[in-house]
């Protein structure tokens, strides 16, 4: 067994060596040119500290409520959230009555009724968030040709490649906040001046954290003081960005707390059971040289 482990370590070293050699070769190949970058994002997302990170991570309900407020008052003007039902907002600490009245503030297009007509009615807890546009084509037409992405899964659908050897360390640190880190960095990454000589296409906005190019169609969505918080949290772009990123993480992975709690029990059981089986194994094999 020791031999196998040494060999494994050796392979790791060899692979690491070749990998590093390859990356540096490529870095050398592409002379750095700030005005015409070839790899995106230009700046890596900033790693934030999130309440939901780590094996015992939980959502901060106050933060999720603030994030919902940012979504409702800002993002939802353009971004749908088709997969999230009002009833699931109980995860954020809202009572049934609160959810009922929140849902009722939305108008849902429903039907056909007995007479065969479509009609509008107030929302119910079982409804999902209604989309801001009737269909994707309408969304694209109102937003310069590209429909704003649905936000239900955005926190899992975005993530900048971590690269070697970071992706190995991520296993041990349980880094799974690539999505929220990216969203937070992007939302706080506007207002920067592009390097001299960089061409920013008309109708787009420079953002060094955008992962698919030098600029994106979405203009800077948040500004200080735009959303009023009633819990005393700072009303800054940075705080809004954190809150909405946390909210979107919940929207994408509503059962995360349950998952991590179950995971801890499973691993604990396997650890104890494994120890017992190992001792039994030692006992069984005690009289046999092997």
């Amino acid at each position: 067994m020791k031999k196998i482990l040494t060999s494994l370590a050796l392979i790791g070293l060899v692979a690491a060596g070749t990998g590093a050699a390859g990356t540096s070769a490529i870095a050398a190949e592409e002379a750095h040119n700030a005005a015409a970058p070839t790899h995106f994002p230009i700046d890596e997302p900033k790693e934030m500290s999130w309440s939901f990170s780590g094996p015992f991570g939980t959502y901060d309900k106050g933060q999720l409520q603030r994030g919902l407020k940012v979504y409702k008052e800002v993002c939802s003007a353009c971004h749908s959230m088709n997969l999230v039902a009002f009833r699931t907002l109980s995860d954020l600490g809202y009572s049934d009555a609160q959810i009922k009245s929140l849902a009722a503030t939305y108008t849902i297009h429903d039907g056909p009724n007995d007479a065969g007509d479509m009609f509008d009615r107030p929302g119910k807890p079982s409804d999902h968030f209604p989309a801001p546009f009737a269909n994707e084509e309408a969304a694209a037409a109102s937003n310069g040709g590209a429909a704003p992405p649905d936000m239900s899964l955005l926190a899992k659908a975005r993530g900048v490649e971590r690269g070697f050897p970071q992706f190995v360390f991520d296993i041990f640190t349980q880094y799974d906040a690539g999505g929220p880190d990216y969203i937070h960095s992007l939302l706080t990454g506007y207002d920067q001046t592009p390097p001299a000589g960089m061409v920013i296409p008309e109708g787009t906005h420079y953002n060094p954290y955008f992962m698919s190019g030098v600029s994106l169609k979405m203009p800077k969505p948040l500004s200080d003081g735009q959303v009023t918080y009633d819990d005393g949290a700072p009303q800054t772009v940075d705080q809004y960005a954190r809150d909405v990123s946390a909210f979107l993480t919940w929207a994408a992975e509503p059962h995360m707390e349950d998952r991590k709690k179950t995971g801890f029990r499973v691993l604990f059981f396997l650890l104890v059971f494994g120890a017992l089986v190992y001792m039994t194994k030692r006992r069984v094999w005690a009289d046999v040289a092997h």
Partner: protein
Amino acid sequence: MSEGHSTYTPKTGIERWFDARMPLPRLIYDSFVAYPVPRNLNYMWTFGGILSIMLVSQILTGIVLAMHYTSDTTLAFDSVEKIMRDVNSGWLLRYLHSNGASFFFVAVYIHIFRGLFYGSYKAPRELLWILGCIIYLLMMATGFMGYVLPWGQMSFWGATVITGFFSAIPLVGNWIQQLLLGGFAVDDPTLNRFFALHYLLPFMIAGVVVLHIWALHVVGQSNPTGIEVKSKTDTVAFTPYATIKDAFGMIVFLFIFAYFAFYLPNYLGHPDNYTVANPLKTPAHIVPVWYFLPFYAILRAITFNVGPINSKLGGVLCMFGAIAMLFLVAWLDTSKVRSAVYRPWYKLFFWLFVADAILLGWLGSQPAEGSYVFMAQMATLFYFAFFLVIMPVLGLIETPRRLPNSITEAVLEKNKGGSGHPAVAAAAPQTKG
């Protein structure tokens, strides 16, 4: 092993009743209790058992997932999200199933590398090895089709790229591609037939697994020394010796599997697969799931034409050739010594080959441009050289180390050299079980 050596004696009335009519208890007893296994098996030999439980786990979680999944292009993505959000413990089933596929491959790769290291494919185990290769092929087909089912961006574009390979085959290529797709592009018929096949293939795997285990029980297990079992002292009974060791190996493996499924469930996936498939929008980099990456790197390494073979067909041939190599190792390896333990040069090249496979995997995840292409070409060259040059030549020129006369002798020698363990091995280990 075979019926002739059965040591089963039915003790109760019901056992005698069964034994006279359909000796199933006898088969189970002979295969999983009395079955003799070499006493020197290390933990690398626990992966057969680990693979069996992974197959069962995949089938069980998969059947329940299929009860909630809809294989229609307009509904598939949302039906998976319905499982994740609204089905009781749906998130658990789906993460166990998607990470289970990855860990199934982790186990099969360790199992295959173990076979290559200890020469487990050599006579009389060629057929056993080939059946294993068939299982691996079926696993790849199953894994590929399973990845298409959530109908995300990588599902769609991965399916487009991989089915596109078939069009490179001369004359019949387009016909095969259209048969696979059920049309001219990946669409509803593709998703439906992939779902049907994804449900069918695991049961075919289970069938070949039965053959694999049957063949194993005819020839017996190989072992780290590569020396055949010669006497009763070389073996121990499957139960309790192998069962308890397998159980411990399984628990360690399940621990790592659970760590990923519960804490890093999306680590091995791709973020783009959480965006619904869009035939009009190609992702920046189309990458297959990690377990296909070495073959993907080989496919893309062929950037040049060779005579009448263009680079696309060349890539496809190399990719399938890379898998075909595995089927042939029993005849490519000319060495009379089985285990790499006694083959210093083969051992060195084996580990280089492992490093090469890992390097190819990493290259498969990188864009095919710049120096990556050259590195992939070199790594591909070594991959084939390992099978076609090193294996045959090394067997002829290498001087192996002295082989012990028997497994028992090897064990006793090792324990004399090692510290502590009193060599009580002389006592026949067969007394238990």
